[in-house]
C-alpha cells in the first residue's frame, strides 16, 4: 500500500459539497443566459432576472444558492495506474460530507425513512450515494452533486414493453416533465435513462443530469432524440417556474444501456435550474484540481 494521505480526499469532499452549493458551473450559467435571451414572456423574464441576482449574491457572499442542500452524491472514477485504497476513499468522502455540513455550517437534508429523524450530518446508511467507476490513468476523479428534493420528487420510472416501442418512452418523458409543472424549479436539465434494468435505468437518468448542460450523447441517434424531446418539452409553454414561458428545459440528456430483449425501461430524473455540481481531480502526489 502507498502512503497517500487520505486526509486530502476528506478535505476535497468537504470543499466539493460547499463549492457545489455556492458556485454554479459556468455551463449552467451560460445555458440560463441563453434561455433568457430566447424568452419572450415578461413574467418568465423576471424569473431569470431573479435567478441571475441569486447567482451573483451567492458568488459575492459565498452563500448557498438554494436552501435545499439536497442529498449528497459522489461519482468517483478511480485511476488504475495507482494503488488507490477504495475503502479509505469511501470513508473519507463520507467524513468530508459530514464535516461540510457541520463546519460550514448548513442544513442537513437527510433523514431516517421511517422515524424521520435527521442526524444533522447529511450522511447515514446509504448516504452519500456513490457511483463507482474506473479509468486508465492514475488520478482520483470525484464529481459531487447535491440533489434537491423539489426536482427529485417529480422523477419517475416505468418498465414499458418492446411492443410499446420508443414512442412510449418519448411520451413518458414529455408527460413527466409537463405534469411536473413548476415543482422542479424549471428550467433545468431533464435526465433520461433508457434501457438497462429497473435499478440501472434510474441510475442512468441521474447520471444524465451530471453532464455539462447540452453535452450531447455520443450516439447520433440518441442525440437526435435529445433534441426532439427538448423541442417538444419547450413547446409546452410551462416555462420558468411553471408560470408560462418559452423555455421549460435547458437540455435533455439521455444515457443508455443495453436492456433485456423483453424489456423497454425508461426513467426521468429532473434537475432544477441550480444544476449544482463540483469536481476535484486528485493526483498521486496529493495535488488537487477543482473544477466542475
Amino acid at each position: 500500500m502507498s502512503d497517500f494521505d487520505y486526509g486530502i480526499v476528506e478535505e476535497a469532499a468537504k470543499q466539493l459539497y460547499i463549492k457545489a452549493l455556492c458556485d454554479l458551473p459556468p455551463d449552467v450559467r451560460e445555458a440560463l443566459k441563453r434561455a433568457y435571451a430566447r424568452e419572450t414572456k415578461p413574467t418568465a423574464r423576471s424569473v431569470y432576472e431573479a435567478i441571475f441576482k441569486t447567482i451573483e449574491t451567492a458568488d459575492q457572499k459565498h452563500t448557498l444558492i438554494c436552501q435545499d442542500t439536497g442529498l449528497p452524491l459522489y461519482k468517483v472514477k478511480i485511476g488504475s495506474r495507482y494503488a488507490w485504497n477504495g475503502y479509505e476513499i469511501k470513508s473519507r468522502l463520507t467524513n468530508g460530507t459530514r464535516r461540510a455540513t457541520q463546519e460550514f455550517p448548513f442544513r442537513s437534508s437527510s433523514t431516517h425513512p421511517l422515524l424521520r429523524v435527521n442526524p444533522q450530518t447529511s450522511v447515514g446508511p446509504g448516504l452519500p450515494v456513490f457511483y463507482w467507476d474506473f479509468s486508465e490513468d492514475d488520478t482520483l476523479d470525484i464529481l459531487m452533486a447535491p440533489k434537491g428534493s423539489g426536482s427529485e420528487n417529480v422523477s419517475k420510472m416505468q418498465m414499458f414493453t418492446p411492443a410499446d416501442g420508443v414512442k412510449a418512452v418519448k411520451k413518458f418523458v414529455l408527460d413527466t416533465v409537463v405534469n411536473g409543472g413548476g415543482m422542479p424549479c424549471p428550467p433545468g436539465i431533464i435526465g433520461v435513462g433508457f434501457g438497462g434494468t429497473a435499478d440501472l435505468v434510474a441510475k442512468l437518468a441521474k447520471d444524465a443530469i451530471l453532464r455539462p448542460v447540452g453535452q450531447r450523447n455520443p450516439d447520433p441517434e440518441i442525440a437526435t432524440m435529445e433534441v426532439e424531446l427538448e423541442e417538444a418539452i419547450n413547446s409546452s409553454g410551462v416555462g420558468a417556474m411553471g408560470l408560462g414561458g418559452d423555455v421549460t428545459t435547458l437540455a435533455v440528456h439521455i444515457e443508455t444501456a443495453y436492456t433485456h430483449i423483453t424489456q423497454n425501461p425508461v426513467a426521468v430524473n429532473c434537475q432544477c435550474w441550480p444544476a449544482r455540481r463540483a469536481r476535484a481531480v486528485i493526483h498521486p502526489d496529493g495535488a488537487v484540481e477543482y473544477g466542475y
Partner: protein
Amino acid sequence: MAEYHLTSPFSEQDIRQLRAGDIVRFDGRLFGIRDLTQIYMFDQHHEPPVSLAGYPCIHTAPSLRKAGDKWEKICVGTTTSVRMDRFSPDLIAKYGVRAIIGKAGLYQKSLEAMQQYGAVYLAIVGGSAALETLQIEEVEAVYWEHLHPEALYQFRVKNFGPLTVAMDSHGRHLYDEVRAEAARRMPEIYKKLGVA
C-alpha cells in the same frame, strides 16, 4: 403586466389592484410559516401571539442562528406550497393574511378565499434563497421557538421580490392557465414527436 412596489401591511385596495402575471416587490414586515406552524395554529388551536392582519406570509423553514437572544439569518428559502393548502383559506379568512408567498401555487378553495377576502398568492423564484436572504433585513421576532425551524417568524424585508402574482383576487390562477394551455398544445406536440 404591471409592476408594483408595495409596503406591508397591505390594504384590500393594494391587493385588489393586482392581476395574475403582475410583478410585485415590497418593503415591511413578512411572516414566515411552515407545515408545523399551521398544524399548531389550526389543528392544535393556538392563537398567534401577533396580528397577521394585512401582512404577507411566506412558506419557509429558515436556517437561523441565535446570538444571545437575537436571531440572525443564515439562509432563508421558500418551499412548495401545496402541502399547506388546507390551512390557507383560514389563514386568509380568519387571520386576514393578504398575501401567501411560496412556490408552485395553491388549489381552488384558497383561490375562492382570495376572491372573497381580497388576498393573492405570490410566486417566488424557487431556488433563489441567496437573494431572499439578502433581502431580509432583520429577523424581528421568532414566536413559538420550540417549533423552530417551523416556528412563526417575523422578518423585516426591503425590496422583497420579484414575486409574480400567480393567483389573484379576481379568480385567475396562472398555474392552472399554464397547465390548460399546455394541455391544449399537447396533441400537436405528440404529433410532431411522432407519439400520437
